[in-house]
């Protein structure tokens, strides 16, 4: 697909980004050779999972990050924004996920913020206010330039951000997941408005991971995955299941040799779990499942459909309501959830840097994150450094973690090796039930393969495993049964038969099991 992109200076092309690379400390490769071509006057969706590199790519364009490699052509000229001011002057506007507004200032003051000249004591705002009033009337935006930003609703604040970009004469407008903060009605309004703007000749890049939005608003869509461009397609010639597949699928890395499933007893079961997200909206709805011993149950789904909340609730890190949770024949109360560790559960969390690891701590200090209070690592409250070091070295060897010295700060390790530390720590506790969330996100192929083999080995060793992943290929490679999650609910159960991938894609897009089988 990449080859089909016009390499010549197509008059239609307003922006071309070629082979953009950008990495961050800690071995995070956000962009690994991304290509993007945007045409004049179109709405171009940038589709991908969280962490696929969409925002980073646009931040590179906007001058917030400097790319490690790659080139950008904007309006047929080589373009290299050193900072956002550069970008704005070149008529690029960006509306960030988190608004960049000063709440205590008025709309008009916010809009001219960057151009405010402090030495001119009496900045006359009247012409600015007039212009904004005119613009807001032209676009039907209904924004009062004299009201304070703190008095505006989230939707109105977003309109101010868009107005700000238009005021500075943007020809190219970037919106980063603009509907994430809006109610459905507000989202509808926004999409209508963006369509209007595009009809007037504005070019829009729309970052999202919601398939329906792509279908509804875009002319073309570029799919990113793991920091790479997967394809650019015309929206009219595609459909949600295909997009979902491109967004989450991955070329088959390897053939995991997996022993036939040995039926066993139920190790972990959940009845009617309900979880509310941070905003108090239901994220997991009447979720029930069970996991048998020597079994991997995969939870497939497009990210943002309640997987994170499900994992956090099961790990006791988020409030939840449930009829029953049974672990290894012990009925779990709400109180017990915070000490599932002791009851034989291990958890490989979604975000290793935020949750799984304490980055300024050493590798060995991270190995004892859950066992620091137990013998032999601690005696009479004193840490046994020698024992801890020996233990760490043995784990490093066993899991072939590449690290010079176990006393080294874990922040210096690559993402793959950091993840191996988490996996090593959790698996070494020989859990009865293992909760795994996105175990291979953002790590290299070698580490991915290793981590997956470890999960399979754990299953063959008798553990019950719940695997949450937005990577369909991973789900199919590892699972014995697949549950598809959509908007917090189980849409259906399927077997990991490669022929079923189409059906899983449909279930992920919200189709019912009856309609796809």
């Amino acid at each position, binding site marked *: 697909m990449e080859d089909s992109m016009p390499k010549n200076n197509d008059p239609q092309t307003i922006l071309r980004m070629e082979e953009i690379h950008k990495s961050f*400390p800690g071995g995070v490769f956000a962009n690994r050779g991304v290509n993007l071509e945007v045409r004049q006057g179109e709405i171009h969706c940038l589709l991908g999972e969280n962490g696929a590199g969409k925002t980073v790519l646009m931040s590179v364009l906007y001058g917030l990050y400097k790319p490690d490699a790659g080139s950008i052509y904007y309006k047929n000229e080589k373009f290299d924004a050193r900072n956002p001011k550069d970008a704005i002057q070149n008529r690029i506007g960006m509306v960030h996920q988190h608004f960049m507004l000063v709440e205590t200032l008025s709309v008009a003051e916010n809009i001219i913020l960057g151009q405010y000249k402090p030495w001119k004591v009496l900045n006359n705002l009247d012409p600015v206010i007039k212009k904004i009033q005119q613009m807001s009337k032209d676009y039907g935006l209904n924004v009062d330039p004299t009201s304070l930003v703190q008095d505006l609703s989230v939707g109105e604040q977003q309109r101010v951000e868009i107005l700000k970009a238009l005021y500075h004469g943007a020809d190219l407008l970037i919106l980063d997941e603009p509907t994430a903060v809006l109610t459905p009605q507000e989202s509808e309004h926004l999409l209508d408005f963006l369509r209007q703007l595009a009809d007037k000749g504005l070019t829009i890049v729309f970052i999202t991971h919601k398939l329906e939005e792509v279908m509804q608003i875009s002319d073309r869509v570029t799919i990113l995955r793991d920091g790479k461009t997967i394809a650019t397609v015309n929206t009219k010639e595609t459909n949600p299941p295909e997009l979902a597949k491109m967004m989450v699928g991955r070329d088959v890395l390897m053939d995991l040799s997996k022993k036939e499933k040995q039926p066993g007893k139920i190790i972990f079961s959940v009845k009617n779990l309900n979880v509310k997200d941070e905003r108090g909206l239901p994220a997991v709805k009447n979720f029930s499942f069970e996991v048998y011993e020597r079994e991997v149950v995969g939870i497939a789904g497009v990210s943002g459909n309640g997987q994170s909340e499900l994992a956090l609730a099961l*790990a006791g*890190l988020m409030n939840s309501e449930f009829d029953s949770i049974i672990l290894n024949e012990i009925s779990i109360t709400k109180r017990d959830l*915070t*000490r599932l*560790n*002791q009851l034989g559960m291990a*958890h490989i*969390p979604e975000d290793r840097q*935020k*949750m*799984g*690891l*304490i*980055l*300024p*701590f050493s590798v060995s*200090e991270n190995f*004892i*994150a*859950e066992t*620091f*209070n137990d013998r032999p*690592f*601690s005696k009479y*409250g*004193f*840490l046994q450094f020698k024992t801890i070091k020996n233990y760490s070295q043995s784990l490093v060897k066993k899991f072939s973690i590449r690290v010079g010295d176990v006393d080294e700060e874990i922040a210096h390790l690559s993402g793959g090796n950091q993840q191996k530390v988490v996996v090593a720590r959790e698996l070494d506790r020989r859990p009865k039930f293992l909760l795994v969330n996105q175990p291979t996100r953002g790590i290299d192929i070698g580490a991915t393969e290793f981590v997956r083999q470890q999960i399979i080995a754990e299953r063959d060793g008798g553990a019950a495993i719940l695997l949450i992943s937005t990577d369909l290929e991973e789900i199919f490679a590892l699972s014995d049964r697949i549950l598809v999650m959509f908007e917090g609910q189980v849409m259906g159960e399927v077997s990991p038969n490669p022929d079923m991938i189409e059906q899983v894609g449909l279930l992920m897009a919200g189709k019912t099991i009856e309609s796809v089988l």
Partner: protein
Amino acid sequence: MDFVSIKKRLLKFSRSAWTPFAAIPIALGIGAIVLLIAGYNPLQAYAAMWQGAFKDRTAITEVLIKATPLIFIGAGLAVAFRCSIWNIGAEGQFYAGAVAATAVGIYLGDLPRFLLVPLVLIAGASSGALWGMLAAFLKNRFGANEVVTTIMLNYIAIFITGWLVTGPMIETAGLFAQTAKISQNAWLWRFLPPTRLHTGFILAVVVALVLYIIIFKTSLGYTIRAVGINPEAARYAGINVKRKVLLAMAISGGAAGLGGAVEVAAISYRLYQLISPGYGFDGIAVSLLVNNNPLGVIFSGILFGALRSGAEVMQMNAKVPSVLVFLIQGLVVLSVVAFGVYSYVSKEKEE
């Protein structure tokens, strides 16, 4: 040597443990310029300062006496700061300790020495700890920012002290706003007469050492540091974050309260409203100067004690007004922080 390699060397240096102390000559240098502009001879002023701190045995012991409350407070704050609790309330916790110690020292004055001295110290430490835990409770229960609550609790503690020494606890003569002297049985031993050096200094060093061991060698310290760096990861690992916050504030406040008790039992022998000339705030710099390491606090505490002690003599002998003395102290803190930020930012950039 080209610019880049100079910069690299500077960077490497700026990350070493001794860096903060290198900020002091810089601060004194800037201070010299200020002194010059104000019309004083900086050499004379600094000579007086040096003399004031290190001239003879008495001068040196006075430095250690001034350092004692700073070491107590600084070591306690190091624990709170390691837990990412920004306790600005050591001043109030120091007062809380001093009040409780005075009360025990006066009202239980008939007890024998071997009972009274420990009781005074325990009263001071627990009173300071409770004052600190109050802020932790407000944070845990209502999410109140500890910076705000601890500052407010400072005022409350200081004004309660003011009320006590002018009202209920005023000395029998009633001439001055101060309490009566505590019982002699509560006095700490001044072991190097004729100097005032007392066993409280040794206790301060021991407390700093113990807190160092707790923070870096025990599983309890591990949890406190983990909570300080990444509370979410700590929670994931099964650590009760709120309990650690409460504990860190108890330790921090307890150490400050112990400092207040020692000040009463070894130096002032009584309570008055201005018993602390701002030890609680200097203690913040004392801890930050050594990257919140309780062991380092012993040295930075002595350094600040020397600055304070020397500054008094500088004021007397070189006739430098006290505002300039405070200015130089402020410059020391500022340059330490600037050094820290520089090495932090350049480290980020490099990576």
